[in-house]
């Protein structure tokens, strides 16, 4: 769906994006993470046909963005990290306007407006003026706008920035729903945990270079070499701790009451063996999961400014 190859963007002598490559298949939800000024927005603006690349190629659904930007615009929906509003325009008129900019007929626009307002839970605000909405509502409306022409690829630049926790959770729910609809999503954030639970894979960008691209779990294991395992038992927690301490590749067992956490250096096969052992020893295991761990710490580790590319 999206192929970026050796993308370079220079502003004079400053290189904002440096030989960045990326590939997203249909249905992927890809998190683009990096500190402020890393080159995320520049990359996204090039994909969204709002900027020309210095060199490299970007293709959306097989169409080169430099060759046929108008066709690409029909395939993607772009949501920038800011929200622009027109005074004196109502919510449904706002969506209708952008629908007409994509050449949708009056009936199509009405239908899409109703569907999207329902998706972003703004149906009751249909006749409200856009500038009277809260920030979270505006962000959701902006997302609905980017979906007006039913694009295959969504480019979302910091969609939850400036939102309160409740609005963030609501936005996350909508994005998950979009993912289940089969939309391919490229989403950026400078907060890794925000993306970790939402994305199928992530890319970490720093100083315009991709320093990691892959699954979040793999990134964690690769950097620390350890997997954090969380085990909840109904009873016999002390027996479980004793048993675990006897096993190899286990470090730092901690826990409160019936919830245990440990760092494990084995692979997934060995991990399943560990669960089997606990069960056969009669420990009543309720849950056995790989935990996220201290993802911020990992992010700091990855983006500490090294030139070495991890992948």
């Amino acid at each position, binding site marked *: 769906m999206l192929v970026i190859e050796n993308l370079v963007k220079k502003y004079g002598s400053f290189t904002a994006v440096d030989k960045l490559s990326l590939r997203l298949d249909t249905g992927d939800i890809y998190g683009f993470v990096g500190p402020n000024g890393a080159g995320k927005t520049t990359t996204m603006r090039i994909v969204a046909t709002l900027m020309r690349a210095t060199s490299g190629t970007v293709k959306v659904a097989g169409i080169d963005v430099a060759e046929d*930007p108008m066709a690409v615009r*029909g395939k993607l929906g772009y949501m920038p990290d800011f929200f622009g509003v*027109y005074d004196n325009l109502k919510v449904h*008129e706002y969506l209708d306007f952008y629908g007409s*900019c994509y050449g949708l007929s009056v009936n199509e626009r009405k239908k899409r407006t109703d569907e999207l307002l329902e998706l972003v839970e703004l149906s009751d605000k249909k006749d409200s003026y856009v500038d009277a909405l809260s920030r979270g509502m505006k962000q959701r409306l902006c997302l609905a706008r980017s979906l007006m022409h039913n694009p295959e690829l969504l480019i979302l630049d910091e969609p939850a920035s400036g939102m309160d926790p409740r609005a963030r959770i609501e936005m996350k729910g909508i994005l998950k729903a979009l993912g289940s609809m089969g939309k391919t999503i490229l989403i950026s954030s400078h907060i890794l945990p925000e993306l970790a639970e939402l994305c199928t894979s992530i890319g970490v960008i720093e100083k315009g270079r991709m320093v990691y691209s892959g699954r979040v779990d793999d990134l964690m294991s690769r950097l620390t070499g350890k997997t954090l395992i969380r085990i909840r038992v109904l009873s016999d927690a002390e027996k479980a701790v004793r048993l675990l301490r006897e096993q190899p590749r286990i470090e730092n067992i901690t826990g409160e009451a019936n919830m245990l956490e440990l760092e494990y250096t084995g692979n997934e096969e060995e991990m399943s063996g560990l669960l089997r052992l606990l069960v056969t020893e009669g420990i009543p295991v309720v849950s056995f999961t790989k935990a996220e761990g201290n993802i911020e710490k990992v992010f700091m580790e990855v983006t500490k400014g090294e030139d070495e590319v991890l992948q």
Partner: protein
Amino acid sequence: MRMRFYNNPVLSSELKIRMRGWKTALGIISYLGVMVFIAFLYYITFIQSSLDWNRSVNANQQAGISIYTMLAVLQFILILLVTPAQTAGSISSEREKQTLDLLLCTQLSSFGIIIGKLLSSMSHMLLLIVSSLPLFSIIFLFGGVTPGDMIMLFSFYIITAIAVGSIGIFFSTIFKRTVTATVVTYLTMFALGLISIILSAYLMNIYYLHGGSASYVPFPLYINPAAGLANILQNQISGGSGGILGLGTGYQTSFWIYNSITMLVIAGLLVLISIIRINPVNRLFSWKKNS
């Protein structure tokens, strides 16, 4: 995307937004209020007294022509003052409101955006111009001016508004801030108006010094709409005799047509540059018919 003038989304949306508030109504009232007030002052100061001692048909016609000339010049000045304020913020305000990117990443072409903006500003100016028609029609009570004269004058107003509007749009694509774009538009208009007259006077001097004797209109005058207006009024009042703007250009009847064509060509060029400037990938003809 296939776009027609009548279904341009930018035009429809702008008209909806403009007409929704009280600002447009207040703008028309103010515009007409200024015209009526000045016309009334002019009438009681200069016309009424002359009609008091001479009530012949000829005196009435002279009064009609006199009021018509005053109103024509007044409306022309108001168009020059109002149009830049309408157009100089068209693109820069989109930048300020952070809506330009949202617009540019749709399938609406740069051409569609600029033309939509220009037409919406022009339709507002047209509304002001048309709303002044009842005021102008009072002149028919005095005589001396034909409906044909009025149509010619109003056509020229529209061309002037398009030319000045395109200057505003051009600077709106260059400057990020509306205030800067508006100030530069006014300054440019003022400078072009003044320079064209000074340069014309200089060129005419050289022409006659080198033995030129035929009617001659120096080229800088063609870009000055005030010269076009002066020519129209001369045609209607004295059959084209007398020099344009007091310059010794000789007998001219069709200068205003060439003046209008020149302004439209310049407007076209400025619109074209504006279209290229706002295209984020700088390809004028990258827009294709997808729907």
